[in-house]
């Protein structure tokens, strides 16, 4: 059953066609990877889906509801949110307050605090709940960002490079978390540069290149697709092997 339907979404920034007629749909409970060279439009795609960027044309439908013209907070309340590539925490607030603020979408302050602690438990950060968010290490901040997004109780969660700068053990934990979220009924879209991780965890992979959807298929199909190899894997095979 389709939960997210993206129809012919385009967006131009000045002379740059950041997204060009992007079209795909995602079924409930899928884990979908989004890959592509730098500047391919991955982050723009996520920003467009949550309403931070308005598409010039095309439609985004979440769970049967057209998102046209909706602000990000409405999209969040309908069940879709994202994490930020460069980590956008409320740096002066405590870790708990960061996550709690997201919980206020569906709860009062006290219930939101309980929810926030649960979400911190899930990412293994309950121990630092009262630390100032800006003082954490980068991998920890990425996990706070993940906990904060989780605390909005999303149906569709867009993760923009949450595994950047993680070591293998930490990455394994996040992949485990992604799978457990799917088991809870969350649908995930994952932008990641780390090929082995994304091939491992995703059911399906979308390949973007210059704002166009180049390929859409299982990890095996995508890895064998000559267009993809030429545009992406071919040029960065060394990086992909890392």
């Amino acid at each position, binding site marked *: 059953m389709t939960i997210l339907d993206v129809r012919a979404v385009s967006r131009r920034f000045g002379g740059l066609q950041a997204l060009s007629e992007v079209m795909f749909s995602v079924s409930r409970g899928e884990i979908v990877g989004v890959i592509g060279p730098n500047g391919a439009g991955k982050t723009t795609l996520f920003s467009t889906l949550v309403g*931070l960027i308005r598409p010039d044309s095309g439609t985004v439908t979440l769970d049967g509801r057209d998102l046209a013209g909706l602000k990000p*907070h409405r999209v969040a309340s309908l069940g879709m949110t994202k994490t930020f590539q460069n980590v956008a925490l*409320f740096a*002066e607030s405590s870790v708990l307050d960061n996550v709690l603020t997201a919980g206020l979408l569906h709860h009062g302050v006290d219930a939101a605090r309980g929810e926030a602690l649960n979400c911190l438990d899930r990412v293994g950060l309950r121990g630092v709940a009262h630390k100032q968010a800006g003082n954490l290490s980068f991998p920890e901040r990425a996990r706070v960002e993940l906990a904060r997004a989780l*605390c909005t109780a999303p149906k569709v969660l867009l993760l923009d490079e949450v595994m950047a700068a993680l070591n293998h053990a930490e990455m394994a934990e996040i992949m485990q978390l992604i799978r457990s979220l799917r088991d809870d009924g969350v649908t995930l879209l994952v932008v990641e540069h780390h090929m082995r991780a994304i091939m491992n965890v995703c059911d399906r992979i979308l390949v973007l290149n210059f704002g166009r959807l180049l390929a859409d298929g299982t990890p095996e199909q995508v890895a064998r697709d000559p267009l993809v190899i030429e545009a992406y894997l071919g040029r960065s095979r060394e990086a992909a092997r890392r």
Partner: protein
Amino acid sequence: MKRCLPLAAVIVLTALLPLLLDPRGYWIRVLTITLLFAAMAQAWNIVGGLANQTSLGHAAFFGIGAYTSTVLLLKFGISPWLGMVAGGVLGGLAAFVIAIPTMRLQGHYFALATLAFGEVMRVIANVWTSLTGGPSGLSVPFVPPSFAAYSFKLLRPHAWIALVALVIVTAIFEAIRRGAMGYRLRAIKQNAAAAEVIGVDTTRVKLQAAVISGALIAMLGTLYAQVAVFFDPDTVFSIAGISIRIALIAIIGGVGTAAGPILGAFFIIPLEEIMNDLLSSRAAGLSQLVFGIILISVILWQPRGFITVFGSLRARLSRTVSP
């Protein structure tokens, strides 16, 4: 609960203070004005502290409040208590109208836009003579003293009313700060895009804060009108005398904290009075110069306000008390 006890003690002691001061004297007026400015700075703190939008136009709402209740009293004989409510509504409305275009602005741009709005209100009040009396100002008419008419022989009740106002505005500030709105405002202040994406309606929350702050300041304008008895557009819509002063009080005391505006007001208002008293007979402008030097020194010494001094003092005390 433990923290409530010293708080209650401070409020009771402040309430007793007017009884010790000469009821016709100078210092009870200073106390009343200090309490009033503390309340105003606290109302400003909702926008300036929690949302971190440094408004320099809050005189607009203050003046609207002062004029609304006084005009209603002059033209229709309506009690200033009701006039205060009407002024609060108008002040909130004005805050709503000005917030729509200025909300997207940040930092200096927001400060300048609000500053301009305050000035526009001053010019309107000067020109709209039929309603406001123009540059010659308005006098609050004398009515037989009674609480219902907000008219008193002595200044004591005014001091108590100002104290009650300060307590109420501070309670509202604290409720906002600790509640959902406080979390949302802090989120917006630090990263508006991230706040939106996790479900914060940033437009709505900023509007709410602006309206609450504007309405409260307008209501305090009535208190000022009743104490001052006479005022003109250049006083109540003053940039330096109202807009900047209340921002300064909150900043000197410690912005975004409940205690900050109170500490700031009890430092700045009496200091200004003392400087004027001591120095204004010596040389023109000397009191302002010395006042300015003291303010600069304080800002250099404690850039985050007096509140940090109290914080570190408390930390040191608890260290010496506990073994």
